[in-house]
């Protein structure tokens, strides 16, 4: 099939970007969305034009590299998929597809469709860990964890750090991302000890880095490729309140 593309091009972080239109023929239904962009790029290079820069690596929805805002939706049409798992069967002959980078203050554009998500690393460094040095751990079965808690912790831990939640949110809040990490650890006995400190520090860092606050619209949950539930935000709020409380005591 033949499609029309409207893609954000921006030379570097300081440059002013703009939309550029392309037409692409010979798009097959079974192509993945990124394979479609690959073939666009191959064509552009041969025609002595600049290819479109976009980020990707695993191409199976687990590394979190890919992240495109497609026709107004993070990761495009389809539920619980990363951009790399979107296939062209979701589109029709003659469709126009608009592709943009994540738009959020916390994620400045580096080039074309690539944004800087370093802020997530900074939030993680503020508390997204359990403080245990190598060599200090007891036998793994010395800590019993109910299957239910382990499964719930796993569901939260499935976050791939893609940033779609931020891109989907009208406040550009990173609450779902933070909540997933805080909840994963809070659900496990190993993580309980630092739970309060973790919630306070990660949220403070998130605020500092220019992410907005959460007004519970649920847009993040709807677009999260890993189906992370906003129930975890409620859990984070509890941890946070509890922690702020004991801080002021």
């Amino acid at each position, binding site marked *: 099939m033949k499609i029309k593309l409207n893609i954000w091009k921006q030379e570097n972080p300081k440059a002013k970007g703009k939309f550029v239109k392309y037409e692409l023929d010979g798009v097959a239904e079974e192509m993945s969305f990124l394979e479609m962009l*690959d073939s666009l790029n191959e064509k552009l290079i041969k025609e002595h034009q600049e290819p479109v820069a976009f980020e990707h690596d695993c*191409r199976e929805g687990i590394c979190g590299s890919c992240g495109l805002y497609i026709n107004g939706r993070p990761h495009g049409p389809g539920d619980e998929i990363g951009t790399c798992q979107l296939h062209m069967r979701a589109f029709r002959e003659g469709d126009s597809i608009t592709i943009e980078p994540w738009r959020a203050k916390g994620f400045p554009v580096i080039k074309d469709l690539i944004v800087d998500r370093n802020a997530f690393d900074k939030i993680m460094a503020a508390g997204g860990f359990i403080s245990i040095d190598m060599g200090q751990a007891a036998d793994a079965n010395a800590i019993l964890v109910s299957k239910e808690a382990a499964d719930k912790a796993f569901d939260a831990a499935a976050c791939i750090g893609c940033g779609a939640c931020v891109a989907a949110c009208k406040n550009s809040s990173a609450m779902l991302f933070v909540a997933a990490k805080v909840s994963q650890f809070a659900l496990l006995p190993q993580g309980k000890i630092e739970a309060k400190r973790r919630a306070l520090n990660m949220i403070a860092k998130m605020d500092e880095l220019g992410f907005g606050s959460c007004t519970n619209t649920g847009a993040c949950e709807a677009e999260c490729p890993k189906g992370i539930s906003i129930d975890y935000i409620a859990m984070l709020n509890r941890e946070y309140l509890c922690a702020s409380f004991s801080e002021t005591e």
Partner: protein
Amino acid sequence: MSKLDSKIPEGPLAEKWSKYKASMKLVSPLNKKKLDIIVVGTGIAGAPAAATLAELGYNVKSFCFQDTARRAHSVAAQGGINAAKNYKSDGDSVYRLFYDMIKGGDFRAREANVYRIAEVSNAIIDQLTAQGVPFAREYGGTLANRTFGGVQVSRTFYAQGQTGQQVLLGGYSALKRQVSLGKVKMYSRRQMLDLVIIDGKARGIITRNLVTGEIERHSAHAVVLATGGYGTIYYLSTLAVNSNGSAAWQAYKKGAFFGNPSFVQIHPTSIPVLNDYQCKLTLMSESLRNDGRIWVPKEKGDKRDPNIIPEDERDYFLERRYPAFGNLVPRDVASRAAKERCDAGFGVGKTGLAVYLDFRDSVKKQGEKAIKGKYGNLFDLYEKITGESPYKTPMMIYPAGHYTMGGLWVDYNLMTTIPGLFAIGEANFSDHGANRLGASSLMQGAGDGYCILPYTITNYLADEIKTKLPSTDTPEFEEAAKTAKERLDKFLSINGKQTATSFHKRLGHIMWNYCGMSRNEEGLKKALQMIDDLQKEFWSDLKIPGKVEELNQELEKASRIADFLELAKLMALDALNRKESCGAHFREESQTEGGEAQRIDSEYSYVAAWEYQGDNKEPKLHKEELKFENVEVKVRSYK
């Protein structure tokens, strides 16, 4: 004396590592603060190494080419991680894990290293659990296990089909903690271009800042490469598409020997090639073979819907050929068996290059819910790509390039032949011989990073406490930076007509056809010629747009492919040299009547370690003879 000294400690196998630790040299906390270590790679080997070295007090610089450490290719590992915990009381032990790996590797790995990795495996699970890795649990709250190919015990720990992600995030969070404590400095979006050697020792690296294009210099007292495997040389493979062999290759060209480059694992259960645009194949985890049965129709070219093919018209060829292990034979055996059926005309699907992996019986026996609990996300993944539900229709699978057992040659210290240059994880050749068993790579990477390297590098650095951090203005750094820059300029100046990707695709085809699942002398010689021609074409007709001084993904690709073109030749050469079949290396000239791999121990019981002699010169082969003192070397049988 040969330059190859594996430095295996004296004493009984089970005591070597504890004796080593008890007698190694130490570095005082005060001196550790004065020592800098570069760790390239943040996968399941690199992230734990950087974190653990920082915990010990060293100053660590950590590098990766992704935007963040958490996206290293390890994140994609699916099925699990092994340990000899014997939580199931099914007769597992450190010795049995060691034995399974030695046998699985077809007696082409070094006993002492393999035993050590088995020995530290339990501590890894303890550490990961303490870090909050949400491994699967039983109702009683204890950790759950499953079985992987090539073994008869349940020793694999897992987190659904996302074990790699969870285990890597454990290492990543430990790394982030050290970043916050100021002990690790992160350099993401950096591509290592060269290794810098001063007075015979590894002292730094040259990198390209992938955002600005700037060529940077970094110095240290020691350099660790945790840069992963080179399976993407086949173009289509199960690896993340930007994985590459460049760092190891640059180290090779600076004098580090390359061990068994041709030993590549072809994984039996990947989603088959569907079309021409694909740049990657998606793995379906080996754990599926616990409950899925592999078959093809007994009738050639039977195109019926698999669900209506009656039981007695199905050939469960693994169960038929290998009754003792059935669907759980090791990967090399399963891959070859599938290829044999397809080559003989029994393959299924549009291309005839696929076999069925069928869950019908397990769904019937255990219920859809139980199967979903074990493999839910893998089934979803499959359905997203193919549009078919494995709950209803058997999966179609075919072998794909997956893992490189070969890599930089290292001694017992995990040090390469360049003093001060260490290699860990998939980047080294060390523990898997000629074939790797499932769930043992995460174990090896994590073991190298958390448990082994922190000791062995300390033993090395104890002699470096008086060395000042080298300046990056030395002639060696100047020279390396200059050469790296010139090479990048060269790519841009060719200004030909063909894209980097098109060359990669063609190289992949050559390697898959002649240096893949089965090899022969004629094919390998042909491949060498073809690679040579392709390389010439590459350097005269490559088209790279843009500049060096900007984010330029095509330029990144070009430099990886240029290295692959050289590495490909070494792989073919190594495969040509080894006239026996062993593990994943199947030389058609050396097989039993039943079509099984035939080792020739009298001639090839060695590690082939290749030394670079200059471009366009035949590399020099060094042999590390393998001695087996603790296992009986047998014909590897899974019947």
